[in-house]
Each structure stands twice: as structure tokens, then as C-alpha cells.
């Protein structure tokens, strides 16, 4: 699976599966630069989301990726794709 690119749609699907969506949140909107916090995801939801990404894509994220370092979908997608590229090389 390591030749896959991780896209915003992938993230939307995993977020929904791992943590659902807040009633006031439209995941289908342009959310790339909206913080996970504003989207209604707290640390536990992000841990579950991170674990789902790790399992599905066979990569490993740092402990702080989702809670400290990658606070928006754009940042997370970039980090995941970097890990995927590293795994390919």
C-alpha cells in the first residue's frame, strides 16, 4: 500500500470512521487549513484517527504529530505523505 498518496478525501473518510463529525462541521467544505480543534476533534479523536492512518498505511507517526505538530488537515496530510515517501525509499 506504500505507493498510495494520502489525500484530503482519505483523511475525511478516516476522520468520519474514527471520530464522526461535529454537527456544526461540514467535512466536505474546504477544511485544509481549519484546525482540528475548530473542526471539533480533541486529543482522543485525533489519537484514534492517527492510529487508523498508521494501520491502514503501514506507517508510524510521532506521539505529538496530531496533538502538537500537525494541527490542520494540510499539515497532517503533508506529514503522512512524507512518511509514505520515506517508507518507499
Amino acid at each position, binding site marked *: 500500500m506504500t505507493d498510495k498518496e494520502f489525500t484530503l478525501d482519505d483523511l475525511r473518510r478516516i476522520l468520519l470512521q474514527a471520530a464522526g463529525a461535529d454537527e456544526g462541521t461540514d467535512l466536505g467544505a474546504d477544511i485544509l487549513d481549519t484546525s482540528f480543534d475548530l473542526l471539533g476533534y480533541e486529543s482522543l479523536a485525533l489519537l484514534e484517527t492517527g492510529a487508523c492512518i*498508521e494501520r491502514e498505511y503501514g506507517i508510524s507517526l510521532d506521539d505529538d504529530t496530531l496533538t502538537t505538530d500537525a494541527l490542520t488537515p494540510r499539515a497532517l496530510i503533508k506529514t503522512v505523505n512524507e512518511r509514505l515517501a520515506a517508507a518507499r525509499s
Partner: protein
Amino acid sequence: MTGASAPVAVTGLGVAAPNGLGAADYWAATRGGKSGIGRITRFDPSGYPAQLAGEIPGFDAAEHLPSRLLPQTDRVTRLALAAADWALADAGVAPESFDPLDMGVVTASHAGGFEFGQGELQKLWARGSQFVSAYQSFAWFYAVNSGQISIRHGMKGPSGVVVSDQAGGLDALAQARRQVRKGTPLIVTGALDASVCPWGWVAQLASGRMSTSAEPTRAYLPFDRDARGYVPGEGGALLVLEPADAARARGARVLGEIAGYGATIDPAPGSGRPSTLRTAIRVALDDAGAAPGDVDVVFADGAGVPELDRTEAEAVSEVFGSGRVAVTVPKSMTGRLYSGAAPLDVACALLAMRAGVIPPTVHTDPCPEYDLDLVLYQARPAELRTALVVARGHGGFNSAMVVRAGE
């Protein structure tokens, strides 16, 4: 008014039962003698010796709860969250109009979120520890319903969780009453249980007390000469408790009062000492300031296991006199709901008092030796002021609660 003997009122009911979702549907089915027991649909039961359960049909959690809560909750918690919403609505309470510290949640549990737990155990052993969900740390544990309800409604006051098998539902109501008397203006209390999943089923089968009959009308027969064990079910009830005077002051409809409570545990098996159930009943009556003759109806535990039925019948006859009080087991229509059973019986007692009828015990052909005035097959009209609810749990837990009608 607070204090050690201040009256505590029930002002709202939230019910999820195999024969009715919501208090109105449940009551309509129960007074009409409609059973919710049937062959298990949630998994294929054909490989198991017991194949009947009281399942709640038609509960779609997504209709009742935000999607953010679904991945992190077991079925039991989804049912409990819905029941809490209904209980508060029924009480006419908007939680945001209360100080958060003035509201608490006290529930009983039997098996926690056992189905969720089965899923995660399976991931652990079949796939590896990294497949276990972040939600497992709380989704399965016994405190989950109190925690999730307190969060959903912003209830920061005293909360709690008790586990005493099927007696626990009354222990929770008693603890809630204690907190109201100590000064908390509102407690959501009661219990729901739901462990109709293969892992839960296998654990329950180990009790050796489940009925293996495949006939829904012949499987669970409390106080019957052919009693052969029980059928488990899922669901229960949550109640809103408030100080009676405060409830009236806010114009709430008072469904009734939690008037008395007593609890005991039976001595160790083989000790030769008798069951302590009668003591629990007497303590509850004393606590309520009620004489046996004041009690209009007993909602019996109705184990459906001959020796347990006999002990209960003897205790009721000893306290009230043989055949001197009406006895019913509406859980013959739902199966035994573990800690959810007794709060549902308390709800049923309150609804029965309002309606002036005693709901029936269905399917039972009573064993004459027990000499009980069982209300059989159809509801019996009666003026009801005071009811006794009995709940007994595996391990010898006995709890009894006296409930009085509201005005």
C-alpha cells in the same frame, strides 16, 4: 428541603425496553401483556444452548446521538444516552437552566460495554495490540454511562456507579436519593444493560441459570411449576430524582416518591444460614415508614429458577402474609435486564400507579405451593398508593425499594 428523611420525587422517566422504546410504548405494551422476548437477531445463536433474548428492536443510535459519539460508544451507552435525554425531557428539565454542580448521574452497571470489549479483544488477539481502539480505555468499563451522560448534559455534581448484579439498579437509585437528600437538586439515575453479543452470551451462559427453551412463551416462567431458568434482555430505565418540594415548586409533575430502601447479601452458599431477602424487604418498609399492609403491589424479582423463586415467595409470604399482597413480574415480558431491570420495574410501578392497574405476569402457570396472589395474563385494575420493588443479583444480592404514588 434536604436532610436524612426529606422526600425525594421521581419527575421523569426514560425507558428502553424490549417491548417498548420510550416510556409510553413500554407502558402500552406492558399493561397489554405484550412480550418482547424472541429468538436472538443480533448474532446467530444456533450454536448456543440458549437462543432467546429480550432484544430492543428499532433503536437506531444515529437518530438520537451526534455522530461524534458513535465510534466511541457501545450499544449500552447509546441506549443510556438516549434514555437520559428522554428522562430529562419527560421531567421538563433543561439542564442548562441548572447550575452544573447541582446535577449528578448515578448509574448501575452489570457488564459495561461488553460488545465493544469483545471487538477490541478480538483485534488484540487476532491482529495485534496496535489495532486496539483509543476508546477501549473507557467504552467498555462500568463507569462509562455515568461519565458520558454527565458530559452530554454538563452535570458536574456528585456522580457514581455501582455494580451489584441485578440488585444494582436499586442500589443506584438509593445512592441517588442519598445525594439528593444531601443537597444535590437533580440526579439522573437508574441503569441500562445490553450484552447480547456472543462473548456476553457465553459469559452469561456460565451462570447455569439461563433457560434453554426455544419457545418464547415457555422459556422464562417466574413462579411457575415448570420454571426452568431465565431469558436475558437488554435495556432498562433512567429516572430523574429531585427533592419533592423543589420539584413541586418548579411546577414539575411528580410521578412518585422513592420512599424506602433496604439491601442485604445472602450468606455464603453452603453456610446453612437462610436467605436475607426478608430482612432487605423489612428494612425498606421501615425506611419508608410503611407497614406491610400499606403495600398494594410487589414487583417481584422473579428469577425463574425454582429454588430462587421459592426463597422469594417465602420472603414475600412471611413479610406480607400468604396471598395477602398482589405480586407481579412484568419482566416476564422483557427478560431479565440485569441492573436495568429494577429501575424499569420502578418506572413500571410509577406508571401503574398513575393508570390504576397492575400489569400482568405473562406465560406463568403458578406453582400453587408458593401461595402468591400473582397478577396473571392481563392487567388488574387496582388503586395503588404504595409499591415494593424487589431485585436480586447473582451472588446473593438482595435490594428492595418502596415507591409511593405522586399526588
